Each structure stands twice: as structure tokens, then as C-alpha cells.
């Protein structure tokens, strides 16, 4: 006679879909369609006594429209002006791309990547309007723009011309919830904020809409963290400074005017920063605004504020935009760009777009240890079937998240080990895979920029 346990075991064996099965891109697309379909229903009709609440809908909706318009303005404000549009008196900085150990030859592709990242840095500094980054000859890059002070020029040289560096973080172990605890420490309790940051929004962890904060709130949260003594695993030495204007202040109006936008209602605005030198804050301020007009927020050594990953290369959210979202992380870097080699966009065995990269010796060891820790935590924090909470690592470049992939702990219970490099798949379109690979390449293969004049 067959026991009851054997009946269950035989049935379990015939289970046509196991919970641990990886999901295909088609299945992810289906999930996205379903989510859109449900949310497009709008809020359900309120019953009787609750009808008055529909009044709330109108201001919320119109605020969203304002934010979207403001973001669009900021983006178009960032388009480059043709070179030479600032005859006499304007800013002109020339950099020469120099080969580095990782990039022995300066090719057209290297120049394009370098210019892309310089444009983004200009946007990050809040001075994109009226600035242009153009190529001159084989190896020179010229930054032109409106006239700035000597200190402003020094700041631009330092910030725009620095060597790009990629940083890998254990996501849940370092990213903070709004109350300052790490997400990892709150997962077992299924804290709502922690779950949102860990399990992500519609586009996955670390993206817009996945639990990030507006910049002012993120900087405030970061400022409350203790200063951590300098160690080799930090991405930044010393504090980082931000200057914010109060909602509806004259300073915010001036900053918006300088950027060609309108101030966002009810929100603090970024007047200056992030800067690693306090005096640079001054240099970057809009005309007519001084440091005394704003609130200085200091992010201590050991904490970083990272912008959420862009939905796509064509949909880049300006960091100064009121709709931009940020995450606060403990600055405990697991892996740096020098540790990875040959990042490429391609397709995996089943034809899905993916991003692959290899490692040097130390990089491989570090990646093994990182992914093992992440997989073990995934198994630890997950409940029964249907409650599998895959954990993530984050890749950041220039204060912005590029991608936050998950480690499927059922497929890789001891992490992604074995020396074969890494293959990030499942959440990319062909274009987004290419974008991520380009950013990895830039961070992994930095060129040295030498200031010519």
C-alpha cells in the first residue's frame, strides 16, 4: 500500500511548473502587460460615504502633469548648444584623452563614450544649460559654455574631467530604508519600505518608482548617518556637500530661471552640489544666489546618495528634476570597475538580450564572495513557495545606479561562482542591454583626461 506521503511526493514530481524556474523575457513582458492592464483600470469606484475622496484625485493628477512637464523642460534644457555659440568671453575647456593601462588605444568609440559621460556629469552639476561637449581632432574634447568664475571653471575641470569609476555594492545589505536601517535587516519582518526597495517597482530594484526618495529627503537621510573611518572599501574620501533652497524661496526661483524651468511646488530645490569641496558649492550657484540663501546638507564619509537607474538611455531623468529619485547606501564597495573585463551586450543561450563581463583574479574572488553572500541571504529571508525574495547587487557609476540585477538563489544557491564571468539576463531589451554594457565599459575601461587649457 502506498503511504499518504508517497502520494504527495509522486504528485510533486509531476508538478509542471516549479517555483524555482527562471522566468523568460516573454513572461516578464506578460507580467508588465498585466500590471499595466490592472493599473489602467484606475482607482476603483468609491462607495457611498467615501465619495468625497475623489476630490483628492484632481490635484494629485495635475501635480503629476506639472512634474512631467518640468522634467521634460529640464531634459530639453540639457541639449547641447552648437560649439562656438559663445564667442569671446565664454567658457572653453579642452581635455585630451590619454591611453590608460586598460585602454591602450583611443578609438572613436572611446571618444564617444567619454563625451557621453562628460555630458551627464554636466547635467549632474546642474549646469547643462548652454554647455556643449564636442570633439576636436582625434583625441581632444572641448567643453564650451557661458562665462563662469575662475572657481567655477576649476570646479568644472575637477568634476567633469575626473576618471570614471564603477562601483558594485551588495544592494540590500547597504541600501537604507527611510528610517535609516539597512533593507536587509528589515526583510524578515517584511517591512513595507524594505520590501519595496528590495523587490522593486515595475522596472526592477533600483529604478524610478522602486522606493527611492526625492533628493532632499535622500540627502537628509544620508546626513543623519555617522561618519565612518576611511577604509579601502569606500568609493569616496571625505564628505559630500549639497545646498538646497526651501520650497517657494527666491533662491529656488533663481535656480529654476537659470535652468530654464519652473520651480516645483512644495519641494526643496537643489541649488548646488554634490561637491566634495565646500568652496565648490559657491562656484556652482546660480546668479544672485549665495550659500546663505540655502540649507547646507553634508553627507558624511561612509554614505553615498545614488540616483535611481534611468528607465532607458533615451529616457534619462535629470538629477535636478523634481521627479528624480535617489537611494541612500552605506558606502561599502564590493567590487570596482578595474576588477571587471570586457563587458559586452549580446544574447544568452535562449536568445534573450543580456550583458556579459569577465573578471581579473581579484575581481573573480570578490564577485564570488559577493554573490554567495547575496544568494545565502535570499534563501534566509524567503518564506514558503510564492514568497521567494531574490536579493540583488547594484552597479553605480558617477553617483547613479546603472543596473541592479538579482541573484536567483534557487538556481545559484552558493552564488555565481566558477570563474566563467557573469551573465546578466532577463530584464533587458536589446537597447537597454547595449546601454548598460556601454556604461560598464566606460567605468571599467576609463581613459585619463588631461587638461590642455
Amino acid at each position: 500500500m502506498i503511504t499518504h506521503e508517497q502520494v504527495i511526493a509522486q504528485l510533486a514530481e509531476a508538478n509542471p511548473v516549479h517555483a524555482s524556474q527562471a522566468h523568460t523575457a516573454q513572461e516578464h513582458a506578460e507580467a508588465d502587460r498585466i500590471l499595466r492592464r490592472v493599473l489602467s483600470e484606475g482607482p476603483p469606484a468609491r462607495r457611498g460615504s467615501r465619495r468625497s475622496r475623489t476630490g483628492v484625485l484632481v490635484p494629485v493628477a495635475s501635480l503629476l502633469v506639472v512634474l512631467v512637464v518640468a522634467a521634460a523642460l529640464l531634459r530639453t534644457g540639457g541639449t547641447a548648444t552648437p560649439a562656438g555659440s559663445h564667442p569671446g568671453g565664454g567658457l572653453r575647456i579642452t581635455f585630451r584623452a590619454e591611453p590608460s593601462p586598460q585602454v591602450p588605444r583611443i578609438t572613436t568609440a572611446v571618444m564617444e563614450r567619454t563625451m557621453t559621460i562628460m555630458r551627464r556629469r554636466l547635467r549632474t552639476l546642474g549646469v547643462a544649460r548652454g554647455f556643449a561637449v564636442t570633439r576636436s581632432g582625434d583625441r581632444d574634447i572641448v567643453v564650451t559654455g557661458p562665462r563662469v568664475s575662475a572657481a567655477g571653471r576649476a570646479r568644472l575641470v575637477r568634476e567633469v574631467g575626473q576618471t570614471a569609476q564603477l562601483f558594485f555594492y551588495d544592494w540590500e545589505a547597504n541600501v537604507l530604508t527611510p528610517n535609516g536601517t539597512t533593507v536587509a535587516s528589515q526583510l524578515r519582518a517584511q517591512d513595507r519600505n524594505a520590501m519595496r526597495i528590495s523587490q522593486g517597482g515595475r522596472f526592477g530594484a533600483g529604478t524610478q518608482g522602486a522606493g527611492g526618495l526625492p533628493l532632499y529627503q535622500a540627502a537628509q537621510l544620508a546626513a543623519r548617518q555617522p561618519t565612518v573611518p576611511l577604509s579601502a572599501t569606500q568609493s569616496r574620501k571625505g564628505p559630500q556637500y549639497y545646498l538646497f533652497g526651501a520650497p517657494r524661496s527666491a533662491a529656488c526661483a533663481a535656480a529654476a530661471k537659470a535652468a530654464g524651468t519652473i520651480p516645483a511646488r512644495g519641494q526643496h530645490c537643489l541649488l548646488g552640489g554634490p561637491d566634495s569641496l565646500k568652496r565648490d558649492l559657491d562656484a556652482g550657484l546660480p546668479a544672485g544666489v549665495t550659500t546663505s540663501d540655502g540649507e547646507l546638507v553634508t553627507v558624511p564619509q561612509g554614505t553615498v546618495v545614488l540616483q535611481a537607474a534611468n528607465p532607458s538611455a533615451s529616457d534619462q531623468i535629470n538629477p535636478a528634476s523634481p521627479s528624480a529619485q535617489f537611494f541612500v547606501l552605506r558606502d561599502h564597495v564590493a567590487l570596482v570597475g578595474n576588477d571587471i573585463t570586457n563587458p559586452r551586450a549580446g544574447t544568452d543561450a535562449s536568445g534573450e538580450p543580456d550583458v556579459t563581463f569577465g573578471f581579473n583574479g581579484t575581481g573573480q574572488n570578490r564577485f564570488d564572495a559577493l554573490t554567495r553572500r547575496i544568494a545565502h541571504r535570499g534563501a534566509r529571508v524567503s518564506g514558503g513557495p510564492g514568497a521567494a525574495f531574490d536579493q540583488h547587487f547594484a552597479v553605480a557609476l558617477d553617483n547613479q545606479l546603472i543596473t541592479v540585477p538579482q541573484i536567483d538563489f534557487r538556481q545559484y544557491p552558493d552564488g555565481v561562482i566558477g570563474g566563467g564571468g557573469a551573465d546578466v539576463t532577463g530584464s533587458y531589451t536589446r537597447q537597454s542591454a547595449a546601454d548598460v554594457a556601454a556604461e560598464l565599459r566606460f567605468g571599467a575601461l576609463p581613459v585619463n583626461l588631461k587638461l590642455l587649457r
Partner: protein
Amino acid sequence: MDDVDRRGTFEELFAAHHWAVRGYVVRRAPAAAVEDVVAETFLVAWRRLETLRDDPLPWLLGVARRVLANQQRAERRRGALTDRLQGLLPGSSPEWEPPAAMSDELAAAMVRLSPQEREALLLVAWEGLDGARAARAAGCSPTAFRARLHRARRRVAASLADPALHPHSSVAGESS
């Protein structure tokens, strides 16, 4: 809950449980129906978001089960001829198609169960739910669920132990 908050809550619910709900549906519905059934299930969740309790997965599976049943009823109404044909085949059940990986013996034992008994077994074996959660998904009391589960396991064990009930031998017997 304001509307932005509500949307966030729902997105969390969806992220946490969508794959489990989809798995449940895939195990029970033809591939072409999966997307609709999952969407319908989460639509119900979206409308009833304020009433959800902690650990919403069993409730979601219960919703999916009812959506699936509604769809199958509609399907049957549309295909009366198919229905009659299925009625001619002994032991076949219009509600349930055994998966390809299941042995003929086990499949034959499973189709003989009532839909409720079959669902009790599958909630435990496939969804991995324990007593109280499985009962919530099945929409009955824990006591009733235990009884159903016990009855189902006994009947399957008995039919697996009895070669006369195996599909090959029984089909051969009827055609002669």
C-alpha cells in the same frame, strides 16, 4: 490610503506574489488562458486592496481558483459539443487536464477525484501550502480541508494500489 499610496501597495503585492499566482494558473489552465486569468485575479485584488489581510497569497490563489472556474464554465457553455464528446470518454474530467509529466496511473487516479479533493491535494503538493493557508486558498475551514485532503490521499493511494483501475487495463476491458 491615497491613490499614489494605493498604487504603491498594489505594485508591492504584485511584485511579491505575481509569479506564485501565475504558477498556480499555469498548472491548471491552458497556456492561452494564463494571461487573462492572472490579470483578472489581480484586478480583483486591486479592487479589494483595502480588505486584504496579512499573507495575501492564499486569498489570491482562492481568487484565481474562482476566476479559473468561471472561465471554464463559460468555455463549456461555448463548446457544448466538446462537452458532450468529453462526456463519452470515461474518467475524463472537463475541468482538469493532467500534466504531461504525470504517470498514467497517477493521472487516472487524480481525474477520479472530485474537483475539491483534487484541489486539496494539489495545493499541498504543487503550491506547497500547509493546512491553514491551504484551507484559505480552498475557501473552506481548516477542519474541512483536513478531511478533504485525507479522503483524497486515501482514494489516490487505493487506486494506485489497484491495477484494475489503471487506464490501460480498463480501456482494454471496455473495448472488448
